[in-house]
């Protein structure tokens, strides 16, 4: 099953679902013929796309809108905040090529503040699946929910067998006493590699796939913090406003402190290139991540063995 199969089957079973796009059809090319008037392409008009989706939702529809993550969250931000957010309307935002997934496009296309922006809107829910299977497990619940929702679309194939999705719950892949990596989205596959490399050095490393960034699984975060050890926040997002900030908020709210290593983009856009190049250059491969964690743990980063990693490149339309 692919994204298009899921949305087609859902739409054919529920005529409230409307598929909309601002001329970004990469994942929904075959739907116009199937859905007829329930496929609406407004052209390159992100603001009108969101406003019209709000109007459709006002009439009881569930619009699933598709466009590039940057343009939706930035150009149409006020429309999402004002029309969808104030209206508390069930508009479902499918954001293409968020974070590192826009690889070679350059800073104009890098949605690396999207989580911060979307979670700042009252009532908005925010999701970042680890891979395609994780995403397909989430979407039926997200679309069925009455809440507005933002989803970092991630169609990368994964190898991990995910636990069933539960709204607002993180997926605890492993627990550990030396460190725990908190991660969301496409960096999950690198986190798996980093964990493997560190475990090979005798470190006990936990891993949590956050899945839902809002509402965040506060209990899971607290459990990780109380277990002791280094807490690593790993994200393809600005350090400000994303998971690192979410963790900081949860800690402060609960009057707790922790040793935290943020691995994020700190006050910078990333160097564009093929995805494998980007991860290597920016230090987000499993090996780089493992070395940064080892260093923070006071171990010798050079001892981290080299692992041949194959990062399939992403073609971003």
């Amino acid at each position, binding site marked *: 099953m692919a994204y298009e199969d899921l949305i087609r089957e859902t739409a054919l079973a529920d005529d409230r679902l409307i598929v909309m796009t601002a001329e970004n059809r990469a994942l929904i090319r075959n739907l116009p013929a199937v859905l007829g008037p329930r496929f609406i392409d407004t052209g390159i*008009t992100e603001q*009108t796309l969101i406003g*019209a989706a709000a*109007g459709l939702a006002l009439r009881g529809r569930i*619009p699933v809108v598709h466009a590039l993550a940057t343009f939706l969250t930035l150009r149409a931000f006020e429309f999402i905040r004002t*029309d969808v957010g104030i*209206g508390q309307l069930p508009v479902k935002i499918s954001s293409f090529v968020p974070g590192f997934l826009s690889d070679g496009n350059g800073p104009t296309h890098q949605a690396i503040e999207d989580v911060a922006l979307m979670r700042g809107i009252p009532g908005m829910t925010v999701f970042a699946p680890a891979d395609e299977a994780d995403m397909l497990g989430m979407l039926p619940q997200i679309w069925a929910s009455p809440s507005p929702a933002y989803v970092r679309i991630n169609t990368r194939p994964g190898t991990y067998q995910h636990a069933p999705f539960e709204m607002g719950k993180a997926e605890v892949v492993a627990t550990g006493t030396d460190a725990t990596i908190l991660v969301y989205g496409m960096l999950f596959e690198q986190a798996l590699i980093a964990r493997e490399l560190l475990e090979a050095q005798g470190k006990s490393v936990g891993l949590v796939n956050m899945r839902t960034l809002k509402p965040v699984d506060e209990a899971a975060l607290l459990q990780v913090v109380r277990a002791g050890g280094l807490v690593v926040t790993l994200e393809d997002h600005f350090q400000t406003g994303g998971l690192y900030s979410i963790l900081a908020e949860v800690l402060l709210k609960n009057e707790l402190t922790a040793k935290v290593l943020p691995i994020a983009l700190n006050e910078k856009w990333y160097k564009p290139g093929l995805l494998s190049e980007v991860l290597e250059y920016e230090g987000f491969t499993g090996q780089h991540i493992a070395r940064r964690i080892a260093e923070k743990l006071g171990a010798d980063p050079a001892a981290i063995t080299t692992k041949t990693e194959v990062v399939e490149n992403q073609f971003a339309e």
Partner: protein
Amino acid sequence: MTSEKQDELKALALRVREHIVRLSTDGGCFTGASLSCADLLVYLYADFLNISPQTLDAPDRDFLFLSKGHDVPALYGTFVELGFMPKERLANHLKANDSIYWHPNRSVPGVEFHSGSLGHLPSVGLGVALDNRMRGLKNRTIVITGDGELNEGSVWETVLVAAAQKLSNFTLVVDRNHFQANVATEDLIPLEPLGPKFEAFGWAVQRIDGHDFAQLEAAFGALPFSDDKPSVIICDTVRGRGLPSIEARADRWFCNFSADEVVELLKELHSQEATTLTSETLTVR
């Protein structure tokens, strides 16, 4: 339109203008902007639209979206006169225990959507019109924008999309009072020739005097102007209409008058019409 009908609508519009003037104190409101579209709203709700307090949930009812949110005193005045909301509620203007403030919001029955930030409701209305067409309903979706609001790029996005969709059940109404907030439109971002602009974008256009009920009836009665185009009605209006002392003045967009000034303005309002002033009329909230 019969002269009796015109007199009836004029009397109704006068009462709506009284409400607007009374709201122009204790914090004030967008008086000038509201007075320019009072006749338009009165005509639409009292004589044209299939919208009433009893049929807000009816499937075939029309939709009116006030994108130019500053006009909300005119909308509330109309709602009070037509029984959508009790008159007493206007006394809650700007009070935190109610939801009657400077822009529309959906918590007031009859208000279709919140507005305030300009250039939003054309696209929201577009979505509603698309839905009505999908459902095979014959009802109308009308969005009222200001002329200054036409500066917003999002309006023109929607103008393009509605034409591409051949959305004949969708109507834009421009309250063309020739002012932005603080400056005459033609001195800042000239809009003319406005009708031909819309025509060039694929819309069917009529331009009328927005204070003339017979012209309003003729234009709205002719909707849709085309079977495969959206329609726009450009209503030439006067900011502050009904009060010569503030008419067409750039500095009478937002007004916060003293109670005494409001009494004088209510007298001025009535001096324009052959009406009798009552002590109740001159009561300021």
